[in-house]
């Protein structure tokens, strides 16, 4: 087969050479594509414009975030098919890997063939809101009974730009077996967690008590962790009026605490390159005793390692000296304003929420990884289950990842640029003091906030 292919390749060049041998017509053959492609390039823009108007049939392009749980994809596909049939709209449903979603969207928007509807996590979709690419969804938000927390998700300024699909609240996963072995209770404060970590830590045997990732190559786990600690210690990055207030004694204390976890060897040195996958893998490998993560890891433990799941307990986030915050994200729908089918995209979201039973089923199929954004689901059997309840509660207490800064593009940019992680890395890698790190932090926040 392969030999054949190779000989085909070689034969083709031979054939071409033969043609050439019989005269110079091979040269003109090569020009054929030149002629057919060059005009296409020039008229491309026109063709595109006329194409959309003349070809009456509507085609809704929907990019959904690919999920680890296969059932989600097939359930969403079923909704899409039903919508297409009932509304007479052709739908192109595509599952896009979340890691590449941003790049693909940016390229597609630039090229003018962006999808009409997207699903992604709020910090990702939010960046497109701040780039003025999203359509307002005020109307949809007022038509359904969204929870109070859900109403805040897509609100930028006074306008709703994203329709929440589900919360992806984080929890703290703890190896209950290791803790029980040493007769320890579940920690309620961060300080307590640290003291316990010192007891269970066993790096010589490849077991680190804590698994807090601190890599800056994208992903929100690390940034969320740093910001949680800063808030719990009474610091703020940006206040509710949009002033950068990060360089405070509280922040310095918080940074000192974070630094000490790494300095005292409670976390693997690898953590500084760890992205969102790293802490999952470390936990699954049994090399980390505690991680902060969304519910995703439960899904993979159910599949691959039920034993580990049995040894795992999910607890609420510990408290700091000045508070106890949980920073949570969500999955949201966004409608691309430059798309050709804004109305159809809105209709689809309505169609999705009109069938509440199906919505509930889709949330549940994700395990506790997703929590509902619509009121009135708390009493279901599923959410009353002991294993699932903490996630629901966590989702209700969550504040936005960039709390308390006002919702705007600057807040999202700061979060996605992982400014806090980079400051922590300055301490861990370049040996900066917490005071210096706080100064660096202030400088980098101000670069964003005072750019205008």
């Amino acid at each position, binding site marked *: 087969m392969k030999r054949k292919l190779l000989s085909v390749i070689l034969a*083709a060049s031979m054939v071409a050479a033969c043609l050439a041998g019989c005269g110079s017509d091979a040269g003109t053959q090569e020009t054929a594509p030149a002629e057919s492609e060059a005009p296409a390039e020039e008229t491309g823009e026109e063709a595109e414009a006329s194409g959309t108007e003349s070809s009456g049939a509507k085609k809704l392009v929907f990019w959904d975030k690919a999920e680890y749980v296969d059932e989600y994809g097939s359930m969403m596909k079923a909704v899409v098919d039903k919508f297409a049939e009932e509304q007479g709209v052709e739908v192109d449903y595509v599952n896009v*890997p979340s890691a590449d979603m941003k790049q693909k969207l940016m390229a*597609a928007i630039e*090229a003018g063939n962006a999808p009409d509807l997207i699903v992604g996590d709020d910090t990702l979709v939010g960046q497109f809101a701040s780039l003025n690419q999203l359509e307002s969804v005020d109307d949809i938000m007022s038509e359904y009974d969204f929870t109070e927390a859900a109403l805040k998700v897509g609100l930028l300024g006074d306008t709703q730009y994203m329709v929440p699909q589900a919360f992806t609240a984080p929890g703290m996963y703890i190896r209950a077996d290791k803790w029980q072995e040493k007769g320890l209770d579940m920690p309620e404060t961060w300080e307590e967690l640290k003291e316990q970590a010192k007891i269970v830590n066993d790096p010589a045997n490849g077991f680190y008590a804590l698994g807090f990732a601190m890599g800056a190559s994208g992903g929100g786990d690390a940034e969320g962790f740093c910001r949680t600690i800063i808030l719990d210690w009474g610091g703020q990055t940006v206040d509710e009026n949009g002033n950068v207030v990060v360089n405070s004694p509280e922040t310095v204390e918080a940074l000192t605490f974070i630094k000490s976890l790494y300095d005292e060897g409670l976390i693997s040195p690898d953590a500084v390159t760890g992205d969102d996958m790293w802490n999952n893998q470390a936990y699954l*490998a049994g090399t980390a005793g505690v991680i902060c*993560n969304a519910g*995703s890891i439960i899904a993979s433990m159910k599949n691959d390692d039920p034993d580990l799941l049995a040894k795992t307990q999910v607890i609420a986030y510990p408290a700091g000296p000045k508070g106890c915050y949980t920073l949570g994200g969500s999955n949201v729908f966004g409608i691309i304003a430059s798309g050709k089918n804004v109305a159809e995209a809105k209709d689809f979201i309505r169609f999705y929420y009109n069938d509440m039973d199906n919505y509930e089923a889709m949330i549940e199929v994700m395990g506790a990884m997703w929590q509902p954004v619509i009121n009135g689901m708390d009493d279901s059997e599923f959410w009353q289950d002991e294993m699932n309840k903490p996630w629901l509660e966590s989702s209700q207490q969550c504040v936005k990842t960039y709390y308390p800064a006002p919702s705007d593009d600057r807040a999202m940019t700061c979060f996605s640029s992982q400014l806090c992680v980079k400051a922590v890395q300055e301490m861990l890698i370049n040996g900066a003091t917490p005071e210096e790190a706080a100064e660096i932090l202030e400088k980098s926040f101000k670069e964003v906030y005072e750019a205008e």
Partner: protein
Amino acid sequence: MHSRKTSKAIKMTTTYVILIISLLWTIFPLYWMVKSSFTIDKEMYVARPALFDIAFTTEHYVDLMVNAKFLVNLGNSLMIAAITTIFGLTVSVFASYAMTRLKYPGRKFFSSTVIISYLLPTAVLFIPMYIFVSKLGLGGTRWAMLVIYPTFVVPYCCYMLRSYFTAIPYALEEAALIDGCTRLQSLRHIVVPIALPGIAVTATFAFTMSWNEYLYAMIMTTSMKEMTATVAISSWKYGDIVNWGRIMAGCVVASLPVTIIYIIAQSLLVSGKADGSVK
């Protein structure tokens, strides 16, 4: 006489020692990739993995073919790589011949443009390139790659072929031309046969480049059925969960076709003793 034999023995021993070390260095990552693809998920995440012990499973391959429908992606890669190679090679054989043998206005300009075009970082070009193919109406499809891949395959083939063509003494061709051969006849009957091993090597590399390309393909395709093999593999990272078993199995499968082609190309290289006329 005796000393010559000893020196030969020393030479051979050194050869073997160096080659065996090189072999280990080469094989080890391959071994690890293959081993991981046959290991059950649970065993993949252990601190201090064992070098040889294996909890053997073929489930990743079943998953790859059944759930992930990887054959579709392999088919895309094969089609794109084959068409790109044939097109690129044909164009380049003629162009390289022209650049090494013919005198025409702008020859230098073309030669250096081909080289300079090849310098450009992919990272600069891929968004504007995406816009360009979208204007052609190919955005989001595998056909986009057929437009883009020649931009790196053709300059590459020209580079390689030019050096092979230059190595062929002009005298051979001159004789044919005096005998009344046209340029293209001499290309067909003299240059191409002599450079055949070189052309085969170039074809192999061109095919591999297209098959292995990742960045453009990642941006250009969105739906699973349009993706090439390399992009499909990287798509099995779901946010913070990575399906390593499937990824490693996909890596093994995606590597097989090119490896086989290389092995065949090698035999061509060895039998490429047809180049007797070079001397």
